[in-house]
């Protein structure tokens, strides 16, 4: 790929980095990344990947922008309320960086469309808000051999792990979705808006590291933080030989649409 003068200027702060350089920027510009969920996590991921010049960004989300999203989903603006999130996100990405090709899927990820959608991408980012889809993304990516970044936020906490073929997967750590009635999600429990930015930008950095091959990915380590104390921890996790999807004797060999949580606000949380 030959960069023109504007592109050299646009990406100069990457090119200046010894570990990245023109070569690394080329890898970024040739990268294809799928972002699942154009919400709290998907927003910062999409903004930073667009600014970085990732060549193709796919975004899948079946929701429209709601006024209550704007507290943290920084890719959506007030006039976007009621607009499809994927469309709103695409518009901002195009404004930030016309180099980026944006592919939108105004849809939910399901067991029947997951493989077909992820197959065209180099890396997948989980920016979703519920466990059924988180496990679906994990299983689809593990089975298809796609690297991905898991991210979750709740109240004042965030956690993320990067999974590449052979490293500990989300199911190695968390086994199976918790009972639906036990689960608080952001829409039920609340979240400090800036947490989404903190976690999402870590996920974006992992994508750029993966594309450029720079540094050590957050594999076999679960990063967690709590914003009340600003304590960050990385917990070593091991590939689990009993894992139902990536262990020695996998029992999950096709994708599952787990039932969605249908809970009300938990008063004591």
């Amino acid at each position: 790929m030959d960069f023109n003068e504007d592109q050299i200027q646009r990406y100069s702060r990457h090119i200046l980095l010894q570990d990245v350089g023109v070569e690394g920027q080329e890898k970024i510009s040739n990268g294809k990344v799928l972002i699942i969920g154009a919400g709290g996590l998907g927003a910062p991921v999409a903004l930073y990947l667009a600014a970085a010049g990732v060549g193709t960004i796919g975004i899948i989300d079946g929701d429209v922008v709601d006024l209550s999203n704007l507290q943290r989903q920084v890719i959506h603006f007030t006039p976007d309320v009621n607009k499809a999130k994927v469309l709103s996100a695409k518009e901002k990405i195009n404004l930030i960086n016309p180099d980026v090709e944006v592919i939108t899927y105004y849809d939910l990820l399901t067991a029947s469309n997951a493989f077909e959608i992820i197959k065209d991408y180099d890396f997948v980012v989980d920016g979703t808000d519920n466990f059924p889809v988180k496990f679906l993304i994990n299983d689809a990516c593990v089975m298809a051999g796609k690297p991905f970044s898991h991210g979750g936020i709740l109240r004042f906490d965030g956690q993320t792990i990067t999974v590449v073929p052979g490293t500990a997967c989300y199911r190695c750590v968390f086994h199976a979705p918790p009972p639906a009635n036990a689960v608080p999600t952001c829409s039920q429990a609340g979240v400090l808006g800036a947490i989404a930015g903190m976690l999402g930008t870590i996920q974006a950095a992992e994508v750029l590291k993966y594309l450029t091959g720079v540094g050590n990915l957050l594999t076999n380590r679960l990063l967690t933080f709590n914003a009340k104390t600003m304590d960050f921890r990385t917990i070593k996790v091991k590939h689990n030989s009993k894992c139902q999807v990536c262990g020695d004797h996998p029992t999950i060999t096709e994708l599952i649409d787990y039932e969605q949580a249908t809970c009300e606000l938990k008063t004591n949380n």
Partner: protein
Amino acid sequence: MSAILVNDKVQEIEAPISLIDLIKLNNVEQPEMVSIQVNGEFVARENFESTLINADDEVDFLYFMGGGSR
């Protein structure tokens, strides 16, 4: 009293203590929302009761975190 590490923090316990009692001791709000490693190995939920924690053991409580999109 014996010292163990829970999420990197020293905790004094009467060893041995079952994992289920350690969960109670740590006021884990929703035990069904936690995945547990003892000395770097995951413990299956059905073994929470039979697993005993001794001095110098390292225990990690890992919580499900579901938010992100909506």
